[in-house]
């Protein structure tokens, strides 16, 4: 069997064994069901509301939770093996360093993929059953798009986790660095951007603002899910400044792919030239 698949298979089974897959699936399912049921509580009623409002609430929450889950899932992937002595052993086996990382990444892709599909999928089926909306087919497309973008957001941070994991020599430092990355992209970046916009009274950078948002994968995810919805206009906040015409859903997924490919390639490159 291909060594990449062997490593991926082990990584995926580890995900099953240490209950990561079931935990992520449950978190996603409960979140989406909860938001779907109680999402309209502010307007004085409970019960399954319109799917598009749910997706927007979900996307806002996913921005915080998905990167964290992905980072926690994978930050120790190389440094952990190093600490338990198996990395040195693996490097003496007939598989390349790139293959080892690719296998691990593939395994993590499987974990994130299956959990998102199951978690949000189950919730989607429940919502579709109870919802009396008519334009179900249309919303189904939006929901599928949401699930795909969640997976990609997860993979972006799995790629960051791999990068962190080959950079540091200790697991604890990797954990610290992972939290830092999370803070940077989920909280600080937007705050800094907003600050810059307010400080310059919007004169500087108004034109390039949408493109600045592309520098943060979580914003790309937000744009991708919010921009397309009419209902989003009221919720999107920062992202409404961006012009949706330029930032088409397909283009945004492409940007997310780049956000996966760049950190991961960097990780492979660093890992290959590192001295053991």
């Amino acid at each position, binding site marked *: 069997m291909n060594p990449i698949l062997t490593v991926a298979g082990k990584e995926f089974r580890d995900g099953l*064994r240490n209950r990561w897959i079931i935990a992520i699936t449950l978190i996603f399912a409960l979140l989406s069901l909860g938001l779907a049921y109680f999402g309209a509580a502010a307007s004085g009623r409970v019960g399954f509301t319109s799917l598009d409002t749910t997706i927007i609430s979900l996307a806002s929450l996913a921005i915080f939770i998905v990167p964290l889950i992905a980072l926690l899932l994978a930050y120790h992937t190389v440094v952990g093996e190093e600490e338990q002595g198996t990395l040195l*052993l693996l490097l003496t086996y*007939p598989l390349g360093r790139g293959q080892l990382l690719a296998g691990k990444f593939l395994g993590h892709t499987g974990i994130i993929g299956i959990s998102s599909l199951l978690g949000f999928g189950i919730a989607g089926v429940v919502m579709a059953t109870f919802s009396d909306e008519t334009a179900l087919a249309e919303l189904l497309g939006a929901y599928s798009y949401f699930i795909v973008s969640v997976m990609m957001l997860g993979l972006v941070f799995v790629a960051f986790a791999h990068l962190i994991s080959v950079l540091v020599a200790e697991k604890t430092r990797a954990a610290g660095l992972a939290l830092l990355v999370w803070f940077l992209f989920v909280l600080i970046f937007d705050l800094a951007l907003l600050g810059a916009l307010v400080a310059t009274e919007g004169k500087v950078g108004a034109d390039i603002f949408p493109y600045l948002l592309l520098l943060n994968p979580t914003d790309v995810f937000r744009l991708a899910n919010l921009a397309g919805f009419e209902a989003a206009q009221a919720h999107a906040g920062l992202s409404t400044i961006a012009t949706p015409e330029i930032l088409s859903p397909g283009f945004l997924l492409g940007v997310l792919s780049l956000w996966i490919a760049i950190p991961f390639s960097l990780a492979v490159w660093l890992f290959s030239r590192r001295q053991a």
Partner: protein
Amino acid sequence: MSPTAVEFTQASKQYGRFVAVDGLDLTIHQGEVIGLLGHNGAGKTTSMKMLLGVTSPTSGTVRVFGEDPSGQQAHTLRQKLGYLPESVSFYEQLTGLEVLRYFARLKRVDTRGCEALLEQVGLKEEAIQKRVKTYSKGMRQRLGLAQALLGEPRLLLLDEPTVGLDPLATRDLYAMLDQLRKQGVTIILSSHVLPGIERHIDRAAIMGQGRLLAVGSLEALREHAELPLLIQVRGGNAREQADALDSLGVTCTPVQENQLEVKGSASTKMEVLRRLMQQPGVEDIDVLPPSLETLYAHISLQGARP
């Protein structure tokens, strides 16, 4: 002479300013069992890593079965190698059998042989189904050895294999090594624990501070170092015995009234013994050849001197 298994030619490895291995020249023939001896930090592990292609020498060359271990053909070469790292805790959540199967798949070896291999290294049927977390140090080492033996390697590298093992496990390990030696496997065995390994190696290579201090069979090394023979005599009068040996040029140290220690060159051994036998009241004579440990202390002391 059998073909070459391993060849270091002026191989050096530097990590920043730290010189881990310094101009190593060493040839190991196929089927040979060589002990790589030295303190921690002498360069043993780094030398092994160069052989395994995990790290490449900063200067000089390393060849394993005539090939560059970090070159193009490394993957086919690696299937012929087996390695037991100094400390490996494996995947705690997996069972011993699962761990071995994973490594077997990576080495492209049939996983059906895994149970038999674990049995061969002495892991019991019920143990292989338990999680590695519950394993003792000795059991982990056995699992590690099984891993190293996957795919019947032609060259086996064992880094400090006896550290932390109880005497019984150590004996088992050496018994297994002797068996592999009979099958013609080339074995490189690193150790800083010297007693016990003497009988199981063909040659010793002694390293210190990254350099090869001495290499050869144990007898050759002993002669080379001209280490004195030690004879202990018990019973009789130590003073009188010392007088009898006076003309032989040996040093006699009475330890107690009836106990004598004689140090001298190996060539005087028979004559010393003959004269001691004639002494009245001698109860016991012990002839102690210099152990690897004294040899090692002697050689590394020389190496430390400029």
